């Protein structure tokens, strides 16, 4: 494991860098560090942003300055291996695959030399680690998909992709949380609102959790969609290993 570095990000933030690659081990260390930081009661911490490589710590230099802060953070690193990570939550996200909701499913299947049903099976089997969120509110950067169903982006991006669309780009998969332009191949759509600014918990997924997709039919899609922000998606602790 590479040495952890404290990197200056101006006078009110610093980046605690754990590595320079996408790996579950680094993600677990970042998660543990975040828990240690929350428990520590170090004053002046305003918010933290986990990413693939680092945890950005936003702080108030009127409360704690860079020197004392890095000293305190260094102290947390020493005890990091003793932090017991609670089991990750798995968010179960229902997806209506294919048809008008997933106009590119047939292309993905053709590209992979598989049937649409096999694509759905391969896509909805793994539990994908949420490494980080970014790009737009609630957009998840997930762990790698089965490369058997990897597919290039659209040559011409769509101008508007409806919120909830589930897409594939290369070996990445994810959900568009808001209507946005985009070039991912769309294989389905979830009726779950991943993001709703007016809900007490505006954004469902959190870094360090997992997402598992499962196929649903049209009737279930409509039923969940009708519940709107009132629908609570299924969560369960992940079985480790």
């Amino acid at each position, binding site marked *: 494991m590479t040495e952890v570095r404290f990197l*200056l990000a101006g006078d009110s933030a610093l980046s605690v860098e754990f590595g320079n690659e996408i790996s579950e081990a680094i993600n677990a260390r970042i998660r543990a560090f975040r828990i240690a930081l929350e428990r520590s009661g170090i004053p002046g911490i305003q918010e933290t942003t986990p990413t693939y490589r680092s945890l950005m710590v936003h702080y108030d230099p009127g409360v704690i300055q860079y020197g004392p802060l890095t000293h305190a953070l260094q102290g947390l690193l020493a005890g990091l291996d003793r932090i017991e990570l609670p089991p990750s939550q798995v968010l179960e996200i229902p997806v209506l695959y294919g048809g008008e909701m997933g106009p590119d499913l047939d292309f993905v299947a053709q590209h992979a030399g598989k049937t649409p049903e096999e694509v759905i099976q391969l896509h909805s089997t793994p539990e994908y680690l949420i490494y980080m969120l970014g790009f737009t509110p609630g957009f998840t950067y997930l762990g790698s998909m089965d490369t058997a169903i990897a597919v290039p982006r659209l040559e011409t991006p769509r101008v508007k992709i409806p919120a909830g669309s589930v897409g594939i780009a290369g070996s990445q998969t994810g959900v568009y949380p808001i209507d946005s332009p985009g070039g991912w191949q769309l294989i389905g759509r979830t009726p779950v609102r991943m993001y709703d600014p007016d809900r007490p918990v505006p954004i469902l997924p959190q870094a360090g959790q997992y997402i598992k997709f499962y196929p649903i039919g049209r009737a279930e899609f409509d039923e969940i969609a009708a519940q709107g922000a009132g629908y609570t998606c299924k969560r369960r602790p992940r079985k480790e290993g």
Partner: protein
Amino acid sequence: MSITVLNPGLLTTVQDMGRTGYQQFGVSVSGAMDPRAAEIANILVDNPSGEAVLECTMMGPHLQFDTAVCIAVTGGDLGPTLDGAPLPSYRAVAVQAGQVLRFTGPRAGCRAFIAFSGGLDIPEVMGSRSTDLKSKLGGLAGRKLEKGDVLPLRAPRTDLKNLSGRSIAPEFVPRPVYTLRVVLGPQDDAFSPEGIRTFLTQTYTVTPQSDRMGCRLEGAAVQHTAPADIISDGIAFGAIQVPSSGMPIIMLADRQTTGGYTKIANVITADFRILGQLKAGDKLRFEGVSIQHAQDALLTQRKALHNLRHALQVC
């Protein structure tokens, strides 16, 4: 108790100190581009810290008041007038019902801020009234002001103590070349010594492609030694990304929360009052300072605002 937008101006939005606490979920902070000017406007009209204000860009709006209220205009000088008569900036002014605030055109800086005593009656979304244009969130339906919009006032006040004394000298002063102080990092080790030297000595020009997300510069290319693309990490206000073109981009209020370009340095918070006023064609250079210098400068500025608020409350 409201204001009617007769003309929205170029880009007028509701902003406060930003939507903090949600960066981990990919939600941009947004907020005033010149937070200090916004804060001074609030202090002048006796609003609590962080009250929502209007941020006006280059061509300000025309606003008609249907009720009396004290206002203050701060930041860049966009030529404010009240019923046609010049309106002094950085001064609390009592506006009467029926009067019209207009901006005749930019004379110095890029952005003016209007605070209304008693605040704008705009709902908070995720803890903030700031407009996030990209995500269509907060402010007035997540967008810029449009003609015919009506902005409700929460509790308009005209009874400010010592109204005539509630003023300070305008803060923004145009310069032929602005100096922005920076703290190097987090990825300054991705650049060659010549690259760092170029960055800290050459003069850069603000391009017209600049907006609330980023201030794009052109000038001498800053040379990398490591790849310009990194595995994503977080982005702070004022972070200076250098993509492979070598042309720096200063990340601003509407920046995305994470990004995959190397960041050579970060503008210090004390200089956001210059950064938030830069417009296309402005020239600037960067001066490297220590983290201690940056934090001292910030605390000195905060103390001055604290003292200003205190002085106006006791006078």
